[in-house]
């Protein structure tokens, strides 16, 4: 059963996985561009770190995008068919959801592996100045976890009814609207900052998207 579901999910999301894998493989290599060249001076460590840091902002974006699109692709055909096919299967819902979730997660392992392979290749061919070290494994772990969290969130939202998704979106929109109105009315009321702290703080669900996404660091 899992193989069949995995195959159907692959058919639905293969383009996303393909582009995601190419991007995931290329990103570490591009971020170390020039570090491999023979004429690069070891004195340019600061420039190298700055470049790596700039490109590093794209890893969480890619992880979030992959999580979103693969989660949406996992449920889109079910939504279109109003879940009739799923209801005809001799499976309890929790098992069906679990199989869908596992299928998407397995597909996401491909771009995650591509980040690791790209990072390994990039660091193996680069000449790093003394004092700088490469962290391909740490970067790949960071990417895998961020993709897993993004996939989990969007999978849960996609699995829910449009009403639930609407409620979540409306709640977020209402918070932003309240904050904007409070700002316009010059009322000393800040709700977004504490919420941001909760969501992105060290124990928050999206904390994994923060931090330093550095393939090379001191």
């Amino acid at each position, binding site marked *: 059963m899992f193989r069949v579901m995995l195959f159907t999910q692959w058919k639905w999301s293969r383009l996303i996985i393909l582009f995601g894998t190419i991007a995931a493989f290329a990103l570490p290599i591009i971020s170390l561009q020039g570090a491999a060249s023979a004429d690069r001076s070891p004195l340019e460590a600061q420039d190298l770190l700055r470049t790596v840091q700039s490109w590093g902002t794209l890893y969480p974006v890619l992880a979030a995008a992959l999580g979103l699109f693969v989660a949406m692709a996992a449920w889109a055909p079910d939504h279109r068919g109003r879940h009739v096919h799923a209801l005809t299967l001799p499976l309890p819902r929790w098992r069906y959801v*679990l199989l869908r*979730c596992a299928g998407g997660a397995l597909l996401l392992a491909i771009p995650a592996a591509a980040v690791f392979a790209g990072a390994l290749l990039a660091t193996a061919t680069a000449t790093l100045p003394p004092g*700088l070290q490469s962290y391909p494994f740490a970067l790949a772990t960071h990417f895998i*976890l*961020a993709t897993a969290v993004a996939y989990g969130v969007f999978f*849960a939202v996609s699995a829910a009814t449009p009403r639930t998704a609407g409620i979540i979106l409306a709640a977020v929109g209402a918070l932003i609207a309240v904050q904007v109105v409070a700002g316009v009315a010059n009322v000393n009321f800040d709700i977004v900052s504490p919420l941001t702290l909760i969501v992105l703080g060290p124990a928050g669900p999206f904390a994994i998207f923060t*931090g330093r996404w550095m393939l090379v660091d001191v």
Partner: protein
Amino acid sequence: MCKTAGLLALLGAMAGGRLASQATELQRLRARVDSLSREWTRAGAIADLADSLERQRAFSGRDTIAVGSLRIVTDPSPLPVRAAAERAWPVLDSLYGDAAQLLAQHPYVIRAFDPDTNAPRPAVYVGLVVPWDMSAATLARLLVANAPMPPPDQALVSWLSGTLRPATRAAQDRTDVYLDLVTAPSTPARACYLGGLRDCRAALGLQSDGDALDLWYPSAAERRALVDRAFTDYFDHGASALTLHACKAGADTACEALLRRLPAGSLPSPLGAQARTTLVRVAMEMGGRDAYRRLVADPRAPMADRVASTANATLDEVIARWRRAILASRPPSVALPWWAVSLALGWAAAFGVCALRSSRWRLG
């Protein structure tokens, strides 16, 4: 012949007239400088008088709190001055050692104001003005940062780019220096990182001889990078602009010429003031209670000798210890700690469970 003589006479008359007018202009300017100098002396005397009166006003009719050698003149208020002084004194005493006794002769003046009123406060020109609800910890930090120690000699101030204060974030300072050491675009800094004590000496500006430019930025790439990063705006106008463009195009002689045009002491050393301050702190730790006094004892001695005498050790010993301390302060690696990995997995699983428990398919 007559024509030539006439022409010469005419030129002589013109030159004589111009010289005479120049002499008059010189006299006028000299008189103006003298007058400005008199005005400046008079203004200085008035400012001194105002300062003296202001100090008298600041010290009169107030309480004096003494903790160790700290003397704090303040007006009665709920401000926790004594508690703050009790926190600040050990910090100051540990840095300045026996020299901290000098603080007894230079009291702090603290004026507390009511933070809950909008009434205008009288202008104060001497001491610190703080709200009386300030915590003892914050006030202690303020006392430490504004310790009224007599300023050291200009050579030390210039070498450290400021006065020596107790460290409020010593570990972070060392980490910042580690980053400088690893990323500074300078050969001596990199060689210092790799273990060359002689290079550390050069990178810290403790070299006794040699040309600073050649020592600090020995290669053409370094000189070009320095001009490019730090002095593009400075040189990008007037007669320097052409040389700057030549330097950026790769002409090392142009880069060198530009850097040699900088005013004395303006060439940035590979490791900045923070590195030098951490070195002096290491020397003072090695030197014991009398270290600060030895540091400021001989303003005319070379800085390398002063640092060594502060530590009561050789300069190489001080630098080796400083280097070990800096290398031990490497910033934490980018690898995720185990708890962050567990948390992320936990959140992913929690969201997955939300999907399992979705209301879809719940019939009836």
